[in-house]
């Protein structure tokens, strides 16, 4: 029996290609409308995809370090806050995991954590987050709170060669830690509603998190009672050593970008360092453009590239649904847990994924069927953990 994997999708504006908004299938004036996102999420949900990530950034130009990112007028611009968008999508989807992007440099960790717990309640256990470390100068100017921070990748291209980036990853680690602690701060059965004693709450089962870090501290318990997953799924995208280490230490699931199937082994080795309570789930990213024939796909691709060349970290597949399934099959054999597809165009390539890629991958026997597990965590094969504070007491 062949290995089987999950399929996920990465949603962003008019799609991942910067010229995608100019295609006739695009809906460029609706990129921040509720109807547009409702339709995308329902397509992904109906296709049986495991989860959808939603991109975000805290400046007009996105997370680009290009100096003209905020002034150029040829790119699709305008965004919705991803955590709130995911919350909006919760009641209109049934099985789809909802994984908004959140940057760790600016938001209050307390607000972010309670937002994710609330997403978990509203979606009945389908919440996750993709944490992004660091900030751009544009984001810092928008906030006006901190002057310090990364200004781009260092000449070497390596995170470890820039103290500001390293510091950003340490801060991201603290945010992840606080998210987990707040998620654990109410034990599952803390609400007792005991008429006899008049107590709504058993205060022995609610715990202050008392976190003191290098970048911030958070004292109290969450204001949100424990959610269906206990801990919302923490994910990250990683391309090199420092982010790999961050993922291995703080994430439940990591998105990686192997240049081809052969590169998967080396990435898995790098990720394997460090001790973990549970396995780290690894998903490979593929940017896809799907048409009925390879010729058509190539024609669309050339048109897009002529208008605005795409620079990307992920492997690109331009072709038919079968071509995409072939790529997924090759990755599957390398021991990954899933593939995240980044549609070049939305909604066109998402529809192609739903209508053609998923059914063919299922027919090829490489897709894990929905096992009916109630939460996203359990669907990816991770146990629902008890509150750390509860376990401490049992041990004491």
């Amino acid at each position, binding site marked *: 029996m062949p290995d089987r994997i999950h399929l996920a999708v990465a949603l962003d504006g008019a799609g991942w290609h910067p010229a995608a908004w100019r295609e006739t299938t695009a809906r460029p004036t609706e990129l921040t409308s509720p109807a547009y996102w409702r339709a995308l999420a329902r397509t992904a949900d109906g296709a049986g995809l495991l989860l959808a990530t939603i991109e975000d950034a805290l400046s*007009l130009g996105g997370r680009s370090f290009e100096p003209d990112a905020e002034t150029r007028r040829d790119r699709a611009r305008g965004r919705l806050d991803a955590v709130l968008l995911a919350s909006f999508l919760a009641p209109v989807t049934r099985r789809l995991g909802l994984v908004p992007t959140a940057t760790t440099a600016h938001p*209050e*960790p*307390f607000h972010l954590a*309670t937002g994710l717990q609330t997403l978990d309640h509203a979606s009945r256990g389908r919440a996750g987050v993709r944490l992004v470390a660091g900030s751009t100068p544009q984001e810092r*100017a928008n906030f006006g*709170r901190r002057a310090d921070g990364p200004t781009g990748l260092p000449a070497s291209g390596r995170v470890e060669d820039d103290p500001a980036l390293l510091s950003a990853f340490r801060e991201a680690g603290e945010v992840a830690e606080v998210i987990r602690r707040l998620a654990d701060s109410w034990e599952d059965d803390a609400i007792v509603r005991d008429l006899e004693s008049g107590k709504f709450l058993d205060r022995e089962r609610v715990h202050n998190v008392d976190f003191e870090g290098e970048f911030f501290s958070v004292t109290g318990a969450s204001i949100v009672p424990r959610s269906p997953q206990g801990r919302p799924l923490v994910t990250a995208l990683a391309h090199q050593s420092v982010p790999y280490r961050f993922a291995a230490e703080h994430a439940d699931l990591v998105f990686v970008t192997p240049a081809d199937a052969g590169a998967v082994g080396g990435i898995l080795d790098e990720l394997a360092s460090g001790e973990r309570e549970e396995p780290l789930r690894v998903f490979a990213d593929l940017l896809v453009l799907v048409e009925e024939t390879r010729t058509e796909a190539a024609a669309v691709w050339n048109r897009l590239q002529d208008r605005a060349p795409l620079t990307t970290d992920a492997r690109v597949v331009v072709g038919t649904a079968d071509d995409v399934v072939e790529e997924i099959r090759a990755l599957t054999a390398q021991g990954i847990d899933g593939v995240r597809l980044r549609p070049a165009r939305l909604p066109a390539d998402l529809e192609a994924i739903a209508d053609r890629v998923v059914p063919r991958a299922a027919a090829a026997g490489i897709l894990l069927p929905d096992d009916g597990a109630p939460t996203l965590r359990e669907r990816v094969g991770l146990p629902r953990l008890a509150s750390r504070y509860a376990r401490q007491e049992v041990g004491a």
Partner: protein
Amino acid sequence: MTRRQIHLAAHFPGVNNTTVWTDPSAGSQIDFSSFEYFARTAERGFFDYLFLAEGLRLREHRGQLHDLDVAGRPNTLSILSALAAVTEHIGLVGTLNTTFNEPYELARQLGTLDLLSNGRAGWNAVTSSDAFHGANFRRGGYLDHADRYVRASEFAALSKALWSSWRDDAIVADAETGAFLRDDAIARVRHESRLFDVDAVFDVPRSPQGRPVIVQAGDSPDGRDFATDHADVIFSLHTEFSDAQQFYRDVKGRLAARGRDEDSLKILPAATFVLGDTAEDARERSREIALQQVRPQTAITYLEQIWNRDLSGYDPEGPLPDVEPDTGVETAQGFAGRHAAIRDRVGQLREQAAAENLTIRELVIRLTAKHTFVGTPEHVASEIDRYVQERATDGFTVVGHVTPHGLDEFTDRVVPLLQERGSYRRSYDEGATLHDLLGLPPVDASAAGAASAPVPAATR
């Protein structure tokens, strides 16, 4: 017919002793189904908006979590976003602090909610900041009391500038020429002061209502100034008729100096209600509910917050404690700061109890479980209408005492009577924004962006 129209907000029951969790029909305060049910009921009753309070730390009493009332609630913005998906007409208003948020981020989140709801978002801007709440945030309890409203006011002005920094027609999306945005689509927003140093380009397009509705809750002169400068609605505590009229006149009287007219600021005080088939019925139910709201332990805890000492030895059904209050460090945390003001009232309380011969529990009921409107649906409807017609309020923020069914009876029995009087809507207008529902003037797009320069477009 020129009857003044009544505006109603629906307050989702919160975490204080108004909410009776011991009621057999009480449901979850956190499951989404409770919020969905409540929102649908409010929409069935044609309310202007659904309202959520905020508390950013679990309340503590004498150094321990307060465990007698409902505790735990969702993140305000996330739950309102989810509600935007299951409602069509009703406004969605959340209480969000100006001290423990940053303008760019909060304006972006509220802008998102406004787009997701097609123009139904609102923001109750509160200022409460103290070290107890601050301990949950990056900045800690860093803000002096005196600076709270300074920050709140600059925060609101900056948010308005961000919301109006996109032209309505910013997005052209011309596939032929490749121009997505107009050249002068977005204005850069600068704000430099002692408290802020922001140089921002906003990334959320303008919403159908221009910007979210702004609500204010806070009673000091500074709070009233903030309201007349920035707010569209005041959530007040003035519900006694002549006091309400006086507050109404005071606040509305300040508007002209700000170039605003009377209708541009609505006053919607909090109101609780108890209905009965007869006046006697209603009074009896009111008494029963009050006893549930103030159980013996609740009464002692309440006095302990004022006395600031252990009173567990006292009989809740007996006379007031004869010990003096401890004026040392305050031990009750997160109860919206009413204690300092009340502490020196011990003498007054003793007088009141003695004059009316009240036990501890009865006194606390007088103080906290006084229901605004008690009577038959006809009586309550005519009272609400009288307040509005005689300019004591523009309507009410209705607070039920059970989650999530607290609005059912009001919607079924009082709303139809208000409609019969011609003072309340019988349907929502298709596509109405929250500004429209509240009868507020349209947002002036040019006002806030005027101080900021358009972001120059790079030629490509």
